[in-house]
């Protein structure tokens, strides 16, 4: 199982965690919502897999390209 880090596509604030560590998710499922420019920008699963860790929590500020979750 390869481990992959998901990164934030945008600078903003973590709005909501849509899944919790341990969850098995389909490709395209939303892991986190980042609030930026008054929009809810999703961080989606690039492929089906298991969410192993969230590297940020709701309310955290994140910058573009920052790792926000780990999947395998």
């Amino acid at each position, binding site marked *: 199982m390869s481990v992959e880090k998901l990164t934030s596509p945008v600078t903003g604030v973590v709005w909501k965690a849509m899944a919790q560590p341990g969850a098995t998710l389909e490709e395209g499922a939303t892991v986190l919502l980042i609030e930026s420019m*008054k*929009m809810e920008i999703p961080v989606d699963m690039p492929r089906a897999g298991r969410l192993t860790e969230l590297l940020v929590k709701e309310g955290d500020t994140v910058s573009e390209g920052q790792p926000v979750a780990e999947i395998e």
Partner: protein
Amino acid sequence: MTKNPPSELELRRAAARAMGGEEAVAKWHAKGRLTARERIATFLDPDSFQEFGMIAGKGSYAADGTLKSFTPSNCVMGRGETEKRPLMVVADDFTLRGGSSESSVAEKWIYGERMAHEFRMPLVRFVDSVGGSVKILEQSGRTKIPGYTLWPGTAMMGAIPVTSIAFGACVGLGAVRVIGAHFSVMVKDQAQVFAAGPPVVKQGLGHDVSKEDLGGYELCTQVSGVVNNVAEDEKDALQQVRRFLSYLPTSAWELPPRLTSTDDPRRRDLKLNDAIPADRRKPFKARGIAESICDQGSLFEISPKFGASLRTYLARLDGYAVGLMINDPMVMGGALTHAAAQKMERFVDLCDSFHLPLVYLVDQPGVMIGLEAERAGTLVAAAKAGAAIEQATVPWVSVIMRRAFGVAGSMQGPWNGPSGTSLNHKFAWPTARWGSIPIEGGVAAAYKREIEAAPDPDAHRVELEQYYHRLASPFRTAEAFGVVDIIEPAETRALLCRWVRDAVRLLPSQLGPKRRTLR
């Protein structure tokens, strides 16, 4: 009957075809790479290559003046065709001294580029060169002031389509030949493009950095944008350049070719009517909208990973080649970032130079804000993009799908244009909202005291915002003819396919280079 020995011409041509020799070519193939000649053969229409300067190189001679051996130049150059349309191709041969300019015979590649310019045909560069070598000094016995007097590097950017593929590490002049193009592509995990490689960086700055970190595809196509697209392998790179050229005219003096389309120009995709979520905080998938509107399978994206809050496609409407821009709210909320502004400027110039009518599907929240954006000088990049739009004479239409706010929101198309007669032809979907100031932040600022004094400040603020949202209905703007029409999203394709038929009628009167090249 005895056979005549091979003529001198045959011997020299055979040496040219052998390139770096059997061993060097075998080693090259073992790395999974194509030789310069194989790349050309894969790229062009069969049997269309007319090579020039095949026997340029270095001969070595016996004391009596007879030829002992011949080493060809490591630049393979000539005229060829794709889709039966002519072009010039100039390819570095890495199997000979690493493609170094030391043995390329500079006159040859420059001649190839000048010929493309003079004969008004696209230029295709296959760059695979280690760059210059200090040993060149030993050959010439002197140093030279950098530069190439006869190279029309800038002028041709306004005259002919210039494309490039980075096949390996491209340094210095090699890098310039890659980036000085309307469309560039680099092969993933194989090509790097930089001003100077790791050894020079180590010496100059003391930094240890890998080739891939310094000029790999992630940096070039996602961070700096110096190269447009990445290719999975060499054949993919060759195919992408063919595809790019299929939308463009042979030169600025000609029109882009129209293809026969089997897609009904009046096709209505009802999915479009629900493409924009009612909740204004929810983004949508930009590509799906572009696909619904354009001829099926006609989208070719340029710079997909750079400045991706703006998507730029070459596309077709009823077979006519167009440029299509659409804001992507999934990336930076769709804001006009520094990168997106640079991308917009280059794309508008490309379309204007080569007579590709422009369609802009707008969901623009504004110029990117915040410390990083201000430090990057985003406003200057936005102003330059705005200038590119205003200087464009190519026919232009915009459709506002959702937001159009602030300075970036005003940049939907030329307001007056260079001749002072541009229409700023624009339509909107019923989901559109616009203004100089977004309502949420605007209400909080203008009614600060009143909101603070209210018994329930939050409820009062929401009430005020709702009131202003009703005022901001696009239909009120349409009453005053502030927009040509509000249309059902599913009608967009039919509208644009009719528009493009009118637009292309203007193009013959706009042929030739436009008044600017690179801004």
